[in-house]
């Protein structure tokens, strides 16, 4: 999926893209791949509101821009879900691009809503008898809650000599969100979005074309 990269009247260029390759022989509905995303809810001074999603088995903030270290999570060939993302350097981008100081590459991690605390459970993670849906919907099949994926850094100490570090909210991915339940290749909003995993905290990506049924095999 590639979002419109042209700009014109009333429309800014987006340029986001996702490559998701079925990997269902391991986990039905699973996909591997990567993406590049426009962020919403970015900081006012960020001249580069884009991030790369590049799943990594390395721990958070451990990859430098000149270090060959990225790679798929070692135990999960199911990239588009919350499983395997814990404290991994799955997102990469630039911190303070265009500033006179600390204008450098930085690793980012995924974050989402959970109860306030130091040891809590992500709201959308566990499968339950009542997957999170809009409570005040009048539909017989209440729509699922779509959780934004926050891309952030909560890095408090330097992990790679020479690289800047620090907290930052890069923003929320425009073309990816989390749901609870469902299966890989499920579609949403008349095939505008495609679910890319069947396991806990599956991610849903867009823009799909509104026409084609994504195939899982």
């Amino acid at each position, binding site marked *: 999926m590639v979002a419109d990269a042209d700009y014109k009247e009333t429309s800014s260029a987006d340029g986001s893209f996702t490559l998701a390759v079925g990997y269902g022989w391991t986990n039905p509905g699973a996909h591997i791949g990567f993406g590049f995303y426009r962020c919403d809810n970015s900081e006012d001074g960020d001249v580069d509101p884009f991030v790369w999603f590049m799943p990594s088995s390395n721990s958070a903030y451990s990859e430098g821009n000149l270090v060959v270290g990225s790679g798929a999570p070692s135990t999960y060939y199911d990239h588009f879900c919350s499983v395997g993302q814990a404290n991994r350097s799955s997102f990469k981008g630039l911190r303070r691009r265009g500033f006179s100081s600390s204008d450098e590459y930085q690793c980012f991690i995924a974050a989402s809503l959970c109860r306030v605390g130091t040891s809590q459970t992500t709201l959308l993670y566990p499968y339950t008898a009542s997957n999170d849906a*809009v409570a005040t919907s009048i539909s017989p099949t209440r729509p699922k809650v779509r959780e934004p994926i926050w891309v952030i850094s909560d890095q408090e100490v330097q992990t790679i000599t020479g690289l800047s570090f620090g*907290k930052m909210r890069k923003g929320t991915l425009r073309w990816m969100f989390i749901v609870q339940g469902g299966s890989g290749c499920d579609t949403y909003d008349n095939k505008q979005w495609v679910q890319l995993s069947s396991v806990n905290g599956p991610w849903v990506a867009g823009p799909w074309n509104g026409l084609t049924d994504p195939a899982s095999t």
Partner: protein
Amino acid sequence: MSNVTAPNFYTNYPLEAQHSVRPFAWKLTRALKASGWRYIAGSNGYAKDTSADPTKDPWNGFGATINSGSGASMTYSTYLFTITGLSGMTADSVGRKIRISGSTLINNNGEFPIVQYVSATSVRFWNRFGSSTTDSGNISWEELESTATVPNQIGSSASITTKTGNRVMTLTGLTGMTPLSEQHYLTISGASSAANNGTFKILKWLSATSVTIINSSGVASDVNNGAISWTEFDPLSERYAPIQNSSSTGGAWTLLQGPSTLKIPITSAASGTFIKGENITQAGTGAEGEILGYQFETTTGFLVVHPRVDGNGAGPLGWDTSAIVGDQSGASITPSATVEEYVREMVMWIPSTTVYYMTMYFQCVNTASENTQRFSYRATSAAGCTAAIAPAGSGTGNTFPTIGSFVPCGTGNSSSSSYSYFAGNSMSSSEIGPAQIMAASCLYDEDKSADGSFVLAMPFLYSSTTDNNGDHTGFAYSICDNTEDGDVDPYVWYQPNPATLYSTAIPITTAVSSYFSTPTAYYNAAYTIKSTAVSTWAGNLFRGFRRRSMTTESFMNFTGASICTATNFTGGCKSVLYGAVPDAPIITTKPEATVGQPIWVVSDASTLKIRKGTPRWLRLVSSGSALSLYNDSWIQLSNNLPAIIAGPWDGFYTPKSSK
């Protein structure tokens, strides 16, 4: 300027030292009146008032001296004093205060409510802490106005020129008006049209000589234009006097009405897509509002709307069933039936002169189908609602409502509760510091929805003069942003208690006594406005309704959520704001750039999930200290991090942590 701040409020009124939370509650009601909450009814234990006239509010304090003398004498009979030797007293003296000085007993001196007119030279007043006296000819006295007139703000040459939106009257010919006048009221007399006389909330400041006021019954223009008398008064400037005036078993209560939302039924899909937050207009009536949500499925649905301009239709707030169009989107829809108004009412009740606690009742009810459930209905119609017993506090016709109502603090249908400490267990005046009170505007107007949020925060002062590490106790009520489209009650209470999370998630139709009489309803001082420990946040933090007006609606306890790392753990997720390093944007040259993290109010209870939204006036920060200011609009309420910051602050005062 109709967001109201009452900064650094403290009273050391000597006669109520053991009941020191009452002045803070009283001050909150003054702030709410200034922000646009409507006074509906109240009592001082001696008499009940249902006039809805803010000048007759029994909880009114006092303002300037309007009459005085000396050489008076007093007699005593069970807290009721009769004073003679006065001059100039009238029937209007009842409701005002009298200041006594010169008594040989210290507790007989002070300011007290006049409860009975005897003659031009004698009245009776109540003093709960007074005692038998032999004062004869040695008493000096002052009669004090029951509201606080803004100095020099009185005149007699005003005009009532226009009426717009079926509710808004424009006045000219005034003097000395300022933007702060939007927190005030005007008392008008001498108008030709009777409906133009009375006391009305100032809605909007236009110039030094002109404002708009709210008077749905008003007539413009008035025949006596140019010769209409007016007085401007300010609830926030009132000074405190004891609000209970009865025997030890007598209570005092007040009933205020807050913001309304509208539920507009539809049976066909909208043409186009409404934009959440856009202004919508009903051209047939002139009504306008802000669209909060749109729900439609097959053949039925509804809009949720915050009213902004009253129309001239036959339904609530002048809406009818003519077409509605979105100002920005151009989307349109025609209501399929009468528009429904959901009104919010709140009761504050101190049920006895000898207790520390205070009871609070709250409701969000349909003004048509659920009208008899309203506290205001009980106040005027129930025999059981008296000068001592609040609406819904028990008695004939005065049971707690069975729909749309809950108890933020205390016990429904009862005046007794050993658990309903208003703001901590048995706190005395030496333990509570200056309160910070904030109330967002509850006024709606063109391009402006009513908000109605408020915060009461009081620091603990265990050593009587110093701040106890910045801890504050209190409670808050806030409108929520980012609500679900079908939520007709986008508000929550912040009222922490230590009960097991969701333990009081009770279906709204369950008998009242089963869910308002449990200890889980109390507010414990140990759970203050801070977040020092996970256990604090693991409890019931917020209260409100789930699916109000819908099937399977319920009263719910909610918890707080924020964005956290470690997204795939079933445990171990850490809020981003926990950590030693402050959370600030990449441009950090401005201290106010500290990240103020929205708090998501949610329920993740199985089968009862909901995202209530993000309270507009409560956020989290990862740094700073208690009473730090952010953008001059928010103040921090704890040193324990992450800490809650609350607003709206006024951008002017410096909050203080000690007396």
